[in-house]
């Protein structure tokens, strides 16, 4: 199985370990990735100018179509944006014509021939839990994870079609295949707060602190996320703006490929565990030794 990899704008400079750990895990699971020079999905510019956003996402879809490859993206905001753009283009022929006129300058055309998938969907649906389980050599014992779904992959469910929006399970099951327990926590499906970071920092932090405290109260040792922006919020922003000088971290956040990779026997350094701003080394205490 091969996909065009859409990393989005934030990974290369801000969360490079998401890419490295993801590539390691996907390689071990025999999922092929093709690198294409894409553009920004348009999620940030949507606040100012929706057409710019639609054209941005449409170009990405058209580029993948020209290579006959479906898209795999590790970022949930990008996922939501691409799915929404696809939904708009499918349901509004006038918009599609307008966009295609602009894309024609580059000999690109959007025809709606390829699918957009999030990393977790590929792992759950295309690889499957049983295949993943076979590759687990060092399952966790006693590790409690607060699985954070994020919002842009779950909603609006009619558009994103990722999982049940009110009682999703696929991310929990992916976490549990590693041996960790995915705990119940009331704010589980709430947004991490990152969309307001840089626009209303106080509000953004309030929302994040609420989430982190709720996760900590539920007994979790760490959060697990599968979105670039969520990781930036719970890792970088928590470190620099919540933990503060006292370094009072509420809970570390680990990226799903890192969690999975460790259970597959991969080296923590190679998975970029030391690149996380808040070291999630607590996870290592729960790894069983190799069988």
């Amino acid at each position: 199985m091969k996909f065009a990899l859409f990393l989005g704008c934030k990974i290369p400079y801000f969360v490079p370990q998401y890419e490295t750990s993801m590539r390691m895990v996907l390689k071990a699971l025999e999922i092929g990735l093709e690198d294409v020079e894409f553009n920004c999905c348009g999620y940030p510019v949507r606040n100012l100018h929706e057409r710019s956003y639609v054209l941005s996402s449409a170009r990405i879809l058209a580029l993948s179509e020209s290579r006959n490859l479906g898209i795999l993206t590790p970022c949930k905001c990008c996922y939501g944006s691409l799915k929404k753009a696809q939904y708009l283009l499918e349901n509004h022929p006038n918009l599609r014509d307008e966009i295609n006129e602009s894309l024609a300058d580059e000999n690109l055309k959007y025809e709606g021939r390829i699918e957009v998938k999030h990393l977790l969907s590929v792992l759950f649906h295309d690889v499957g839990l049983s295949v993943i389980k076979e590759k687990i050599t060092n399952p966790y014992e006693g590790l409690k994870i607060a699985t954070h779904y994020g919002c842009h992959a779950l909603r609006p469910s009619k558009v994103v079609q990722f999982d049940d929006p009110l009682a999703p399970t696929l991310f929990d099951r992916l976490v549990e295949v590693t041996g960790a327990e995915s705990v119940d926590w009331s704010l589980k499906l709430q947004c991490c707060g990152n969309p307001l970071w840089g626009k209303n920092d106080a509000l953004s932090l309030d929302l994040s602190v609420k989430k982190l405290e709720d996760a900590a109260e539920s007994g979790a040792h760490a959060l697990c996320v599968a979105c670039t922006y969520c990781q930036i919020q719970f890792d970088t922003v928590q470190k620099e703006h919540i933990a503060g000088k006292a370094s009072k971290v509420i809970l570390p956040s680990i990226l799903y490929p890192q969690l999975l990779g460790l259970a597959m026997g991969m080296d923590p350094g190679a998975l970029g565990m030391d690149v996380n701003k808040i070291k999630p080394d607590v996870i290592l205490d729960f790894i069983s030794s190799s069988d």
Partner: protein
Amino acid sequence: MLFSISLYVALVIFGIGICVRIASWFRYRIGNEAQAISSGERVSAAISGTLRVIFSTKILTLIKVFFLDVLFQRKVLKEDVVRWIMHMCIFYGFMLLLLMHALENFISVPLFTNYYATVNPFLFLRNLFGALVILGLVIAIGRRMFVPGMRQTTRPMDIYLVALVGIILVSGIFLEATKIVSHTSFQEMVDEWAVLDDDELESLKAYWAADFGVVFPEPVAARDSDALEMGKEAHEMSCASCHSKPTWAFLSYGVSKGISPIAVTLTNARSQVWLWYLHFLASFVALAYLPFSKLFHMLSSPVSLFANAVMDPSTSATANVLTRRAMELDACTHCAACSLHCSVGVVFRQIPNETILPSEKLISLKAMASGKQLDDKELRRIQQGSYICTSCYRCTSVCPVGINLQDLWLSMREDLLREGYPENAAWARRILADRLGGQLRDKEATVTPAAGDLQKDMTVSLQAETFSSCFECQTCTNVCPVVNNYENPRETLGLLPHQIMHSLGLGLENEALGNQMIWDCLTCYMCQEHCPQGVQVTDVLYELKNRAYTRLTEEEG
């Protein structure tokens, strides 16, 4: 005489220009930290930093960068092979012409005892180097005309440079061509260097007319093979040691054949003198203009490559980082590689603000840093472009002269913020709060449903018209995590989601736009997901943000 005077004038202007440019590296302030550090501190930090690098193992990095990035230009090759070919031709052609030809008295003559401009290999090489430059210029012009991203970013400064170099090259080729055909030059040289009787002179003329491209006003008398033989002998005695066959000067020779029909007219009109003036004056204009133009990159781009190879963000002195930023503004060659690969370059097709593109944004930053007074309209354009950037780092990794663009962009935002230009949405909400925020606080005011069909007018998101289905169940407001964050949400947010939907139903767009709720929307889609009536609440809020922003940006025209 004119030559010497114009050379000295050009050198003086050049010298002053270089000093002004380099001084700016220590004076221009970019980023918050720049406010607290003086130019003097920056100069001493630069000197000590440079010395520390030279007398350390980092000197090896500099040597490696010199060969791989300055001489071989691997970053250019990585970005685009055609661009690399183009620049290699121009770079090596021009540098070698400069060293071998322009500076012949200082370099070629001392180095090569047999150097004469008209003898091989120098005759051939001069034309070869010239041909390389011409080829490079043709590719450069072609790229700027036919590669879409290049066409969009081409500015007068790019055209001037190509034109100036083109004039120098073409005037040089035509100058050599007119010398080749010149019968007056032939006579001058014979008078000075040859001792010949009349027959020998005629035969030499025949030989030179046949093989050396000279065009004489009257046909040469002696033309048979004996005459040519005698001419060849005379040539070998008096001329050959300084004159290789002009066919080796392939560019000039080709041109000389082309101008042969009018050669005598040109010669008698002293065209070679005028072309000589044109050639050296154009060269001196380039020399004087160098510090003030793109040409300056010849000196500053290697500095940027060296500096960025050895500077480490975590250990470099802040004073040196500030100097590097200012220097980088001069190192930019306006090659637009950054803009061609920019992640938000596609947005430029929808929003015609060139400061979205990194190469143009850098020019704006230069204007800001130089202390140029920019008006509100200009600063808003720069603000818009600056915050559409997603800091993806691609421009930085692509820049052929190694400029740390990411650092420049982040510093630019600090400078914009200090001027009162924050992130785009933050700016819009503040202005709208000032203008419209109070409208619904006055409980005495009558609410009048507005004329006009808002439903039909809200077409940006294509689903915003769904607000008309709202029946005020308040589910959206109740599931909103932002509303739930506050003890008294109405106080902080203004109208709440269901109230905004209702306002729109009444056509009260201004009342809706004046609320912080729109800008504090998390876009988490909880409201839209749970709405029993299919109102696209989040999308409506997106549309309102778009309308607000468009209204504000269009107002200033």
